[in-house]
Each structure stands twice: as C-alpha cells, then as structure tokens.
C-alpha cells in the first residue's frame, strides 16, 4: 500500500493521520501486531525516528499499545475505534455542511444528492 | 594488521607474477627438450623455425620477468593508493606506514622470486649433459683443470675480509632492492600532489631523483678517492666503499619512505 507524503506539512503529522486512518478503516485489524518501526519506516520510506514519533502519538491516543518486548499492537477497544471514527466523520460532515451551506443548498436537497452518490 | 595487509598484497601481486613465472619455467622446459632433439636432428627446417620462435618468446618472457619485478610492485602501489582504489585502501583502519611496508616487502619478495625463477630456468637449460659439457668447455678453454682449487686458495688467503665483503655485498643487494622500489614510491607520491598529468609528472620526478643520485654517487666516489689508502689492504678499500654506498642507500631510502608516508597521511589528493 502506497504512502503518500506531501511537501507542505511536517512528516510526522501526515504519518499519524495515515496510520489513524488505517486503523479506523480496518486496514490494520484490531488486536493484531503492527509491523516493526523499522519495517513501517521502510515501507513508507521515512525516517525511523519520525515513524516512532508518530506511533508515540497514536499510543497517547490509545490506538496502539506497545508491549516492551514484542512490539506494537493495535488496540482491541472496539468502542474507542467506533467513537474516534464517529468523531472524525462528524468533523468531515461539519466541514462539508459548512461549504454546502455557502452554496445555498438546503438540507433536503443535500440528502437527495448524497443518496444519488454510490459508496 | 601488517600481516593481513601483507597477505592481501601477496595474493593480489601473485595474480600478476605467477603467469610470468609459470611461463618462464614452461618455455625453459620446451626449449631444453627442443635442444635435446636438435642434437640428433638439426637439419629439419620446421624444427629450426619452431626453435627460433620459441627462443624469441622465451627471451621476451625472460626480459619481462626481469623488468616486471619492480614494475608490478610500483603499479600495484600506484593503483591501490592513488587511484579510485585508494578510497578503499586509505580508509582501512591501518597505519599508512603499514600499507607502504606491506607493499614494499611483497615487491622485494617477488623480485627475489623472479631471480630465483630465472636461475631455475637457466639451470633447466644447462642441467645434466649440457652442464657438464659447458663446464668442461670452460676448463679446457682456460687451459686449467683445477679452477676450483685455485679459487679456494684465493678465498682462504683472504678469508676474513672476503667474508665481510660478501656480507656487506649481500646486505647491499637487498637494500638496493628496497631502495629502487622506494624511489618510485616517493616519485608517485609527489606526482600525486599535482592536479593533472600525475603519472607523467611522477616519472619525470623519478628521473630527476635518479639524476640527483648519480651526482651523489659521483660525490661518494670522489670522497673515497680522496681518502688516503696507505697501509690499507685492497679488500678493505672495497669493504669501506661498499659500506659507504650502503649507508647512503639506507639513508636516502629512509627519507623516501618518510616522505611517501607523510604525503599519504596528510597530503593525499585523490580525484
């Protein structure tokens, strides 16, 4: 799976976002072991220290837990993942609604448009 | 580490020397066999032509062995210290002096080997009947049957001094082997400091050094001549002269070594 690192923002923030996305959407299965820092860094072609920094950030959020000897594991806390997913989704919806509102489209019209979308 | 460097260099140089050595011995054997055959049948045109061609090749190989002893050593030194290979050689965790010494020792060793090989090939050529014939011929032509005895007499008469002379001579020959190679080393080290035409410059520097040395040796000759030789045996004159030459060679050789070392250590100019 390709990692895309953009130019304009700090690398580690982009890594946090990407990893978070992969955990929330199930690319990385709950409760399983994550690749080692070195392998992840190799895959993403980023600095291992930066990858470590991103993982620490995820650890703070509780999305992964590091076990001293055996590496990093994805959380198996279903509720946490669900809550985070809802939180991210509602953030996206909020931004989206703000833009839609500016266009002067009503909520009803918007829902119709969404229903036409196929996803 | 010197041991490892020596071993590495010994193998790397051997790759170049060995074919020459084998060639010399091989052609000596072929030459000898042909000579034996020709003793009985020397009217065959084909045989004569083959013999001629083989002899030419043999002589060429002998010449290349004579020259190669030092040439290969100098080439190896230049290649591994001052060309792209220098990036490897000069970043090894070893002293620069060890690099020089290992290559120098290997160079001298193979030069000695090449002389041994030449001697062996000569022996192959004249061993057995031919050798006896040659010795007999020598004796007859000098009209003496007891050459060895008269030589012995001379040796015994001046045994003490002769032994010393031979010792000095032996040391001198060995020192000269080192000295010759070191002069090239220093020439290439100095030439390396230039930014262009390094090899050409190195050769010019070598020729320059040789010329300076001939001045020095002329000086030594004058000095020896200037010493008064009253009450001194001829053998002693030879000994003293040889000793002075030896001292000069050792001193200049050491200077060459230290200059080369200094340049490799702190004035290396790899492209």
């Amino acid at each position, binding site marked *: 799976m390709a990692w895309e*690192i953009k*130019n*304009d*923002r*700090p*690398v*580690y923030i982009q890594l946090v976002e990407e990893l978070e996305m992969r955990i929330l959407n199930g690319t990385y299965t709950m409760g399983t072991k994550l690749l080692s820092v*070195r*392998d992840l*860094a*190799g895959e*993403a*072609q*980023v*600095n*291992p*220290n*930066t990858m470590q920094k991103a993982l620490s950030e995820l650890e703070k959020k509780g999305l992964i837990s590091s076990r001293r000897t055996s590496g990093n594991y994805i959380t198996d806390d279903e509720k946490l993942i669900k809550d985070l997913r809802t939180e991210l989704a509602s953030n996206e919806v909020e931004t989206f609604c703000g833009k839609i509102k500016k266009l002067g489209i009503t909520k009803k019209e918007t829902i119709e448009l969404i229903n036409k979308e196929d996803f | *580490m010197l041991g*490892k460097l020596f071993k*590495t260099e010994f193998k*790397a140089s051997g*790759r170049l020397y060995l074919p020459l050595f084998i060639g010399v011995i091989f052609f000596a054997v072929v030459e000898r066999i042909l000579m034996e055959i020709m003793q009985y049948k020397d009217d065959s045109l084909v045989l004569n032509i083959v013999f001629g061609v083989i002899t030419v090749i043999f002589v060429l190989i002998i010449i290349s062995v004579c020259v190669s002893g030092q040439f290969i050593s100098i080439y190896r030194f230049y*290649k*591994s210290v001052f060309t*792209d*290979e*220098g*990036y*490897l050689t*000069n*970043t*090894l*965790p*070893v*002293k620069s002096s060890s690099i020089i010494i290992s290559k120098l020792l290997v160079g001298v060793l193979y030069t000695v080997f090449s002389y041994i090989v030449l001697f062996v090939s000569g022996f192959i050529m004249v061993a057995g009947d031919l050798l006896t014939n040659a010795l007999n011929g020598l004796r007859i032509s000098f009209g003496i049957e007891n050459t060895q005895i008269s030589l012995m007499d001379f040796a015994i008469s001046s045994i003490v001094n002769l032994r010393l002379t031979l010792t000095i001579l032996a040391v001198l020959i060995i020192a000269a082997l080192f000295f010759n190679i070191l002069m090239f080393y220093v020439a290439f080290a100095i030439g390396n400091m230039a930014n262009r035409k390094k090899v050409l410059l190195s050769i010019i520097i070598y020729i320059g050094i040789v010329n300076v040395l001939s001045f020095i040796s002329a000086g030594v000759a004058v000095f020896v001549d200037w010493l008064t030789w009253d009450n001194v045996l001829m053998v002693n004159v030879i000994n003293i002269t040889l000793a002075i030459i030896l001292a000069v060679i050792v001193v200049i050789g050491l200077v060459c070594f230290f200059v080369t070392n200094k340049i490799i*250590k*702190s*004035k*290396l100019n*790899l492209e």
Partner: protein
Amino acid sequence: MSEILKCTGLTKKYGSLVALNNLDLSVNKGQIIGLLGPNGSGKTTLIKLIAGLLKQNSGELTVNGEKIGINTKKIVSYLPERTYIPDWMRVIDIIKMFENFYEDFNLEKVKTMLDNLGIKFNQRIKAMSKGTKEKLQLILVMSREAQLYLLDEPIAGVDPAARDYILRTIITNYNPEAAVIISTHLIQDIETVLDDVIMIQNGNLKIHKTVDEIREESGKSVDELFREVFRC
C-alpha cells in the same frame, strides 16, 4: 543523546581556495542527516575529512571524541562517489577483505542483502554493470555495524527502483546507536528519510534544522526551501 561527530572551526583549503570555512557542527547518535548543498559547496570535502582521506588546515574534528585516525576508521563506514572495488576481484574476494579488516563486518547481513539482489559470491566485478557495482558497494558499507555511516551521493544517477532500494536499505539498517550522513543534491527524493538537514554553501554552514522544523516554520518542503536559499 550522545555526540558521534563534532567539528569546531573546521577549515580546509586547496591552495587559495577555501573549501570549508570555520565550520562548527555536531551530530548525535541515532540520527539520519542530510548534507545538502550545491556542487562545489564542500560536501565531499567534509565527508573526506571525516573519512580520513584529507587533513584539515585548522580546527578540530572528532568522531566519538577521537581525532581522525585508525580508531575512527574502525567505526566509520564510508561510501565514496567512486566505485573502488578492484576490477580483478570476485564478490567473495572483496567480502573477505572487509571481513579481514573490519571487526564490525556482519557476514550474515551481507549474505542476506546479496541474496535479495541476486548477486552471486563468485561473480566477477569486471563483468558487473556500474549500477550493480554501486549496489554491491552500498551493501558492503551498510553491512558493517559501524557507528557513523558516510554516504556520498548514494542516489545520484540511479534509476527510481534503485533509489528506492538504497533508501530502504538505509532505513532497514537503521541503528539507534549509529548516525548516518547522506550527502546529496537530490533532496526531494530523500527528505522524508532524514531527521536533520545540514545545508552548506561555499564552505559555510547555512542551516542545521530538523525536516519537520523546516516544514512547520516555513510551510515548505526542504526541497523548496533549498531552492530558495540557493537560488542562482
């Protein structure tokens, strides 16, 4: 974090040309550093000084607290921009040479990496393409458990697949006890791999910051910043 490399007032001249001018620099263990600068800025000179191929005119230069010499050469693994493996050798010969002279050489590592690339032990150097020779050299250099790796232009002139291979090799051999200095003028390709960026120009230190600091402060990639700083 402990310091692996330190330069104080480091100056190197070639005749009247000043290649490095009074350079102060410090690199810690565990870092991957990009040494950036236009051609002729002094990158290679700095690397050669650290590798012990050149001597400075003035200033101090230490690796792991020691002046450059046999002891530092033991722990510095250097990849020059030249291919230096003697032509007549086979792969096994150069491996043996590394094994003989470097105590930190890891034979298992070299075997694995050569296997991955399909390079055989009895292959002749003479018969190899330039690209293969360069990869072999990188493998040899990265197979040492060194404390300081100096990679001079490792990705110049290689195709994208080879570049990815090289970067992956550098990342997967990462060791928190060792530092890596990579000199290059192709920043875009490697900037995400770096902790710190050191930019030098005409022998002077211009910038020494982390990649994310640069991105955070300027909102630009290192590459964009580089183009700005060194605009002709």
